[in-house]
Every structure is written in C-alpha cells, then in structure tokens.
C-alpha cells in the first residue's frame, strides 16, 4: 500500500517538474524571467513530494498506536483486569489475527471480534491516508505551480531547500554520534553504581566472573582496568614497532626513490593490505604467526606462550603498515619541491636531503599519521580477539599472554547477558574509556597535522 502511494507521489512530483518547467519555458520565450526553468520545475516537484511524504511518514509512524488505543476501548471489561504483560500478549494476538497470519486463532471470542474491529480501523486508516497524502500532493503541486511567474525567485527557494537537506544530513550524523556517546555514558554510570570508579581506573586485577550460585568459587568479580589497558598498549606498542619503521621507510621509498612505474604498481599493492578483512588477519595471527613465534622462541631458548602479545602485535603491525605508509607518503609529497631543489643545489645527496630537510619538514604530519595509526591499533578487535589471550595479565613481557580492552568487551557481550550484571556493564565502561583515549589521540593528531598544513599555505 505504502509503496504504491510513494510511487504515486513521486510520479506526481515528476509530472509537476515537467509541467512547471514547460510553463517557465513558455514564459521565458516571451521575455526574461528571474530563474531558469529547471529551478521552477525542481521547486514545484519538491513542494509536491516533500510535504506529502512527510505526512505519509508521520502517518505510518503513529497509525498502529492510535488504532491500538481505539481497539482497546472496544474490548470487554475483563480485559481491563489483565496484567500489563497479559494485556500486551492479547494485543499481539489481535494484531496477528488482524494481519491474517497463518495458523493463528484464538479461543477467546472477544479477541476475534477485536481483530475484526482492528482490521476495519486499519482499512479506514489506509483510505484516509491515501486520500490525505494524495490530496496534499495535488494541492501543493497546483499551488506551487501558480508560483511559476516571471519575477518569482525559484532559484533561491531551491538553493534554500538544498541547504536544509544538507544541514539535516549532517545533523543526523552528528546526533547519532552524540546518541552513541550518551548511551555509552548512561550504561557506564550504571556500571559505576555497582563498581566504584576508582576501583575501575586504578585496580590492578581484572576478573569479571560473577558467581551464579552463592557457593561457587570466585564469587566476587574484580574490575580493575589497568591490566586490560596495559595489555592493549603493549600490543599497540609492538604493532607500532613493526608498522612505524616499515611504513615510514616504504613511504619514503614510494615518495622519493621509486620509479613512477614501480610506484603506480606497488603503492596500490601495499594499500591492498588495508583491504584485507581484519578477521583474516586474525586467523593468520592465531594459526600461523603465533605458533611460528612460539617455535622461534623455543629454538632460542625463550619461553613463549601460545597466545603471545608479540604474535598479535606483529600481525596488527602488518595491518597498519599501509595506513602509516599512505598517510606519510601524502605528507612527504606535500613537502614543496623547492625545498628538495634547494638542498640538492647545496650539494646534498638524496639521503641527506631526506634525513635533514624532508623528514624534518614532514615531521608533524608523520607524527600525526603515527598517532592516527596508534588509535587504530588500540581500537582493533578481530586480530586480538583471535590471537591475544583472554586472561588479564599485568606484564611488560611481549612473550606472555595479555588481553585487550576490545577483547574484554567482546567477551562481556557474547552469549546471554543480563543488563544489571557488572560483567556485562563493564563492556560499556571499557568502551567509554577506550573512546576517551582514542578521542584524545585523534585530537592531538589532528592538531599536529593542522599546524603542519599552516606552515606551507
């Protein structure tokens, strides 16, 4: 029903566009007009479609609730005695019956009757909706079409509606972000009602198991986030030690040394790394790199755990190489050619020029690229979920098993959850802390990158 209605409104809107444009063309033939014909067309089309579709949207949003209220007033008095949950169940039954879902029947006669009433209301509502939407579309079209006049400023109206559209789109994006942050905040507050903030921020023990039965062991959970964050930073550090030098060196190679043909082939190939799903990196880490690291460790007489921070960090480093390489390549390319020429003209070699002029000039941008890569590494989930451990272990030894914030969030929210349980709620507190950290890193990175930009423009 709604689909037909939308199609009809859009068809009318198209018709309005062509009709108004033809009218404006006719006007233009006999003398100058203010706005070009297509602006008149677009304006009429917008007037026809937008208000009608908004009405349609509002109608479909509120219709079920209104009908439900009306149906309730038809129900016999015994319905009023039912509890909230039972009443909802009955209403659901009525709705299913009204929709004619196969295999639904009710033993209560009044339910059948109510479904009949429901159906009739729905029919009335559908007719009313069709009539009001279509009449609104037509009236708006005709009214807007009378505005196709010589001096009418249709162009300005169209520009304004475009502005409004763009503004609303960005508003939705921003509001969504705020909504996510707010929900994160509220759930975290719930967590901090159960676990003190100071315990969370400064506790050295993370063991979120809550006993189901009183007599179980380890019946009280511990929610000290420090080992979890330490593990995160340890893995991110290993990742940066891998990705930083390799990414920067490859960026320098691509920007300064590579023959254009090599660059055209190799740069997209490197950026292909960024296109590999992280879950693929994850099992690569768990099945290939982790055993390799352990075997290598054993070969040189080191004790390496099966799920070491080193293995996860190395694979994560490989993942963020293209990230650093691509960003650093951009900033190195942004260093003006005149600086290179100035350095070569002084008799500097290529590597002297890179070390002493280009890298210092690009340094703020490179630092920015590194910080963005770090915040990427901290937020990465799949690799560590598969390759890092589950047990919080406060250590600086990359050969040991550590866990990360993202892994703990995954663990907390997998399976059946109760949202009054600190274990589940801890996910939100961890998420909030992670969000704050990456936000700070991003702000610092963007500030540095911005300062760099100002230097050459």
């Amino acid at each position, binding site marked *: 029903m709604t689909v037909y209605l939308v199609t009809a409104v859009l068809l009318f809107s198209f018709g309005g566009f062509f009709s108004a444009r033809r009218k404006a063309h006719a006007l233009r033939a006999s003398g100058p007009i203010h706005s070009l014909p297509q602006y008149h067309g677009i304006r009429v089309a917008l007037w026809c479609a937008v208000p009608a579709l908004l009405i349609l949207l509002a109608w479909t949003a509120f219709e079920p609730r209104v009908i439900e209220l009306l149906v309730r007033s038809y129900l016999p008095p015994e319905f009023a005695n039912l509890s909230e949950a039972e009443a909802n169940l009955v209403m659901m039954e009525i709705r299913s019956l009204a929709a004619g879902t196969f295999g639904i029947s009710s033993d209560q006669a009044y339910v059948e009757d109510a479904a009949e009433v429901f159906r009739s209301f729905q029919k009335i509502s559908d007719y009313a909706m069709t009539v009001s939407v279509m009449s609104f579309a037509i009236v708006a079209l005709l009214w807007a079409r009378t505005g196709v006049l010589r001096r009418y400023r249709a162009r300005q109206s169209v520009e304004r509606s475009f502005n409004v559209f763009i503004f609303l789109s960005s508003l939705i994006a921003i509001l969504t972000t705020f909504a996510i942050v707010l929900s994160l905040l509220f759930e975290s507050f719930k967590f901090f009602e159960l676990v003190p903030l100071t315990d969370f921020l400064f506790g050295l023990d993370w063991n979120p198991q809550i006993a189901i039965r009183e007599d179980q062991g380890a019946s009280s959970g511990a929610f000290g986030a420090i080992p979890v964050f330490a593990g995160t930073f340890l893995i991110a550090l290993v990742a940066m030690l891998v990705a930083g030098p390799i990414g920067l060196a490859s960026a320098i190679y691509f920007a300064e040394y590579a023959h254009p043909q090599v660059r055209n082939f190799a740069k997209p190939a490197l950026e292909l790394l960024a296109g590999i799903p992280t879950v693929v990196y994850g099992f690569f880490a768990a099945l290939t790199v982790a055993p390799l690291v352990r075997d290598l460790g054993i070969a040189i007489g080191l004790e390496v755990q099966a799920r070491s921070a080193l293995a996860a960090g190395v694979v994560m480093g490989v993942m963020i190489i293209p990230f650093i390489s691509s960003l650093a390549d951009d900033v190195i390319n942004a260093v003006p050619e005149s*600086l290179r020429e100035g350095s070569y*003209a*002084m008799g500097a070699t290529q590597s002297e020029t890179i070390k002493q002029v280009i890298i210092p000039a690009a340094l703020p941008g490179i630092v920015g690229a590194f910080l963005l890569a770090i915040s990427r590494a901290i937020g990465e989930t799949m690799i560590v979920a598969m390759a890092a451990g589950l047990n919080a272990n406060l250590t600086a030894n990359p050969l040991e098993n550590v866990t990360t914030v993202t892994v703990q969030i995954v663990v907390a929210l997998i399976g059946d959850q109760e949202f009054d349980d600190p274990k589940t709620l801890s996910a939100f507190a961890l998420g909030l802390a992670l969000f704050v950290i990456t936000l700070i890193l991003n702000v610092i990175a963007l500030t540095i990158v911005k300062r760099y930009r100002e230097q050459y423009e």
Partner: protein
Amino acid sequence: MNEKKVTNPALEVSDMQAYQDVAGEVAVEDARVSCRDVRVYYGDKQALFGINLDLGSNAVTALIGPSGCGKSTFLRCINRMNDTIPNCRVEGNIRLDNQDINDPNSDVVELRARVGMVFQKPNPFPKSIYDNVAYGPRIHALAESKDHLDSIVETALKKAGLWKEVADRLNSPGTGLSGGQQQRLCIARAISVQPEVILMDEPCSALDPIATARIEELIDELSENFTIAIVTHSMQQAARVSQRTAYFHLGNLIEVGDTEQIFTNPQQQLTEDYITGRFG
C-alpha cells in the same frame, strides 16, 4: 626599420629549431664557465639547440628572453640540476675551470658545492636561520669546530647583508622572515660553502621593489668575489646588475654582448623586438 639589423623570420613555438646565427662574441678571455653546443631534451622534445656561451670570472651575466626560451634550463645545466628531472637529457660540453662537469668521473656533489644556486621563490628550509646557513658547511664538513662553523655562518650572513637584521635571533625559524630577508638568507646559504659560481633564477620575481633593490645591490657586491649568472624578466634589472647580457629565444641563443651594447644597439631584430617590448 634600421637597415643594418639582421632580420630573421619570426620564430613560433611550434617550430622550435636550431638557429645558428648568434650575434656577438660568445667567448670571453677569463671564462670561468664555458659552454659549447649545449643541447637539452625533455623526452623527445628538444628545449635547447646547441648553446655556446661563456661566463666571465667575477662578472655578472644576465640571461634574458621570453618565457619558455630555455634560459632557466640553460642555467640549470651549469650545476646539473636538470639531473633531478626525469626524462631530461643534457648533451654538449660544459666546463667549469676547464673541467668537464658532465664527465662520468666528476662528482655532482662537489660540482654543486662549487656552483651555488638561488631560486625564484625563496626556499629556506624549515629550520632555524643558523641551521639554514650551516646546512652546506655541515654536509660538506667544512667546519673544524663549533666556533669555526659560527664564524662561517656569520661571514655568510654578513656577505648576504642579513647579519644586522638577524644576529639576535639566529635560532628563530628561517621561514618566519620576510620574503626579501628569506631570499637573502638563501643567498647566504648559497655562499656559505664558498662557491665559485652563483646561479640566480629570477631571484627577485617574488619580491617587492624595495627588497629587489636590496638584492640587486647585493649582487653587485657579490660580483667582486663570485661569478654570477642571473636569469631575469626585468630588462631594467639586467641593465642595472650585469656586465654582459645574453638573449635567448625559443631554445636558441640569439645575441650576446656587453649589457650596454645589447640595450642600446642590439644587432638582431629579435633582440630589439624583445627589449623594446614588442613581444615577450
């Protein structure tokens, strides 16, 4: 039209070609740089057609000509800056103190230490004023001690006429100076390694008249110690600073001679057309 002038068919960019009839004497007695039959190609496109020109010791030679005539390309041959351009090929014989600079045995690093360059747009490095000037002496390991480096920097800045303005802020960034000061900083940077030749590629085109006058004065002073070649679009500048002037047109050297003679009594019709502003 004056009858004694050699008239040439007007050359169009589309028919860039060798044009051998150079007016004036290309050779000088005390040549520091001597170029013979210099041809430059960008890929398949030839940009210079057998240029013969000498740069006299401790003299200023101005290279003038319309845009795209090859004067900058020629200038960049002298310190082999064209090496940095992909697809660019330089042929012919260029001698600095009678040594072939394109000889496989000659070292481009050493060459560029002996032939300094100042660019169109001031291009100080994003370093302090001190480090900008100390850049060359450091990479060529010219200073024996910190004090020695200090004195090299001070001398270069004094010669470039910038010392008084920056003596109290040597550690502030070179990019924070005004355009004219930046260009003098670049000149100080170029002379800090005691080159023999300084190439200047339109060094004043990004500067205001006051800063330009300052640089021109400086060029005059520097010509006592250095051999200078300057590319310029300003006839007045060429007339003010140079002793010899060479006129380039579509990849050819058309005329060369004493600056005064070129501007008062050019031998070629093309030269006269250009300096009287008929084209270019």
